[in-house]
């Protein structure tokens, strides 16, 4: 198990290298102009000489390969550079935001996984029943609904129509300090929306996995031994039916990140997603590269986690090597 984790970590290095190179290449091809994004409205009255000076200062007139190499060598020494658009060191940007994003993602993950599992098991127990049909239909609808649309809908309903929950931000505007009592109500809508966008996948997988498992020999054997239906369902069918879900947990990490991107934007959540959007639209190379590394690392870690869980849950699967 340790060997597998170690090998995967070694394998991550070339992947990260390739990904950052790709980000620099794509950013260089982007139609957005970093100088214009940096200057903002002031750029509309600046002289061309001033804009050219800015271009040189920001180093965006150099070929992207050279910029990538510079970024890479300084990143390896721990210096992630300065974000032009936020006028702040990249390390500060990430340190100040990643916690809030992680909090949102973890809460949403739990809020999606638990109800999905319960609903999935209940639906699989009576396939074609009322609950199964209703929940599955709803799952397909939610699956088709984009997260930002769900977000706007939630804001409209809970914040604008009902006035029951805050529509955005981390705390009330007047609040000076960030307290749990302030954050909790502000967390509800973003978590709800992000969870709703993830829930259908987990639900459908659990439902399918458990339903398939109910047809399998071990379950038939368990029933033959006269075990209670509850024991059969939770102890046997759910256990083997959850295996594909473990795979899903890993592969849903990228989805969770892109979902968070949209949800954070809608709810002005001060996480890394807002920074990512800004970094992308203003072609802020250092910030974009650091955030991509972070996202890539999260995906690789997610895959590793699901492989490890799989190995632990199913003795038939080894830790590859």
């Amino acid at each position, binding site marked *: 198990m340790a060997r597998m984790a170690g090998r995967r970590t070694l394998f991550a290095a070339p992947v990260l290298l390739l990904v950052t190179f790709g980000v620099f290449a794509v950013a260089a091809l982007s139609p957005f102009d970093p100088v214009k994004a940096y200057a903002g409205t002031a750029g509309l009255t600046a002289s061309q000489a001033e804009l050219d000076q800015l271009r040189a200062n920001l180093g965006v007139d150099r070929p992207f390969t050279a910029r990538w190499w510079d970024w890479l060598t300084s990143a390896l020494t721990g210096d992630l550079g300065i974000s032009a658009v936020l006028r702040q060191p990249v390390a500060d940007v990430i340190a100040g935001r990643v916690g809030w994003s992680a909090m949102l993602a973890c809460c949403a993950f*739990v809020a999606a996984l638990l109800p999905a599992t319960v609903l999935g098991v209940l639906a699989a127990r009576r396939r074609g029943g009322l609950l199964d049909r209703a929940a599955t239909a709803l799952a397909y609808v939610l699956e088709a609904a984009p997260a930002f649309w769900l977000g706007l809908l939630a804001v409209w309903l809970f914040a604008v129509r009902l006035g029951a929950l805050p529509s955005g931000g981390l705390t009330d505007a007047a609040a000076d300090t960030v307290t749990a009592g302030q954050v909790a109500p502000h967390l*509800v809508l973003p978590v709800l929306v992000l*969870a709703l966008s993830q829930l259908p996948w987990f639900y459908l997988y659990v439902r399918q996995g458990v339903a398939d498992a109910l047809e399998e020999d071990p379950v038939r054997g368990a029933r033959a031994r006269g075990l209670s239906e509850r024991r059969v369902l939770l102890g046997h069918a759910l256990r083997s039916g959850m295996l594909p879900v473990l795979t899903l947990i890993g592969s849903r990490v990228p989805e969770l990140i892109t979902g968070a991107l949209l949800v954070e934007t809608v709810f002005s959540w001060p996480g890394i997603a807002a920074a990512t959007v800004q970094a992308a639209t203003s072609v802020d190379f250092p910030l974009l590269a650091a955030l991509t590394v972070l996202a890539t690392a999260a995906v690789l870690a997610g895959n590793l986690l699901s492989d490890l869980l799989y190995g632990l849950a199913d003795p038939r699967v080894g830790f590859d090597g």
Partner: protein
Amino acid sequence: MTARTVRGAAGAALATALITGVTACANPSGPARPADSAVVGIATEPQTLSPLLGYGKDGNSKIFDGLLTHDADMKLRPALAEALPEVSADGRTYTYRLRQGVKFSDGEPFTAADVEFTYRTILDPATNNASKTELDAIESVTAQGPDRVVFTLKYPYAPFAERTVLPIAPQHVAGKQDVNGGGFGTRPVGTGPYVLTGWSKGEKISFRANPSYWGGEPAVKKFTMAVIKDDDVRATRLRSGELDAAVLPPNLAEGFAGDRTRRTFAAKTFDYRNVTLPTQHPVTGDPAVRQALDVAVDRATMVDKLLDGAGKAAYGPVPTDSPWFTPGTERAYDLGRAKRILDDAGWKPGEDGVRVKDGVRASFPLWYTTGDKIRQDHALAFASDARKAGVEVTTEAGTWEVIEPRMKTDAVLAGGGSPADPDFDQYLLLTSSLAGDGFNNMARYDNPVVDRALTDARRSGDPAVRKAAYDTVQRELVKNPGYVFLTHIDHLYVVNDRWDGPGTQVEPHDHGLGSGPWWNVEHWKPKQK
């Protein structure tokens, strides 16, 4: 992790409860805050709070003071300077005497060295300040002793004093950091009426009163600016009581019109929308077409329908209610005259109603920036008015990246306006030598009379000479419009009626957090009940 899990589960449970309709209370009014605390909703936030990178360059920066400041009538008043500057006879030397005993919020004294440091750093080519073109006139800035600063200019520049509302940064803090990415931009220290307590980017900026402010401690002790991009959400949060004030578009501000606990402020502005008429395009380059379009647009209807009445018809960069405006340059909507001008110039209606001259169809594209509803509305209205005169305008949306390479020949729905001095926007907009320099003089307007008048106006210290020069410019724009000016747009704000003091200045196109009724929040007083 357990705490998060619990909180997440609790959140999900609460959400489920809400979905099922347990909570059905509508619009609870927010907690009544004490009147010494104010929360205002703004639409955009600054990229940085460092004056060295451009923050607060037009004044009202809360955290900082400039040498001078603008009062409610946009007249210059001394701030960190003791008095208005002494200007030498040749108009090239400005001497400021500094106020004594002013301290930065960290307790260090403010001196002439800080002023010199601020201006020198901004002018340094290595400083990434996109607004430094505005200080182009400065040749040198020198501290003479602790309380005197002398600016020497490259050329006589009459409106220079207007630029010195620029906030002064402390050398002992900002001088020790990297100017472009150092912590000063997020943790600033200034001499101003407020001290920054927190800045959650994209969410809010929080201030508390500076107890040792040289102008006296503000009565509003806690001041917060909530950054809310979406107009509807901002209006909702204002209605719920979470915000005390907000900037709103006309249609949403109207919803608060009958509210006795709130007041609506319509700030007069220099904020114009115009259509560039590129001289390089065969159709818009023809003076007859320009003149015809200038009288073919129905400005009154645009103000009425597009702005819900919150604005004025624009006949040039100067709004009609400004002392700089030249009476008699208003142009009435006159479709018949527009048609006559085009007929006389040889533009004859073709089969599809679009005029033709020497095989050239009277047709040109008009670009507006994607997602800007006001510009889109203006562009469509302009196109429809032009069509009535037989000129076909095809509207297209794009980002500035798409528009910029086309600006030379394609028309653009542009905006601008700067109230502090007519030179600030007119020189950049109309000077022929700045044609196509960045985004300046987009239309490549080239009129020697205007060039001369603009130069005279910026060099002369005599107000009468300056007024005469800007009169010349406005009259020339009637004869040969390089742009069709459409409207000047009012900026609307709704404020809880709990304070004495809110009011508005004349506002620029680019109205950041220094604009709005809270420009002078440090002078607000809670109302006696």
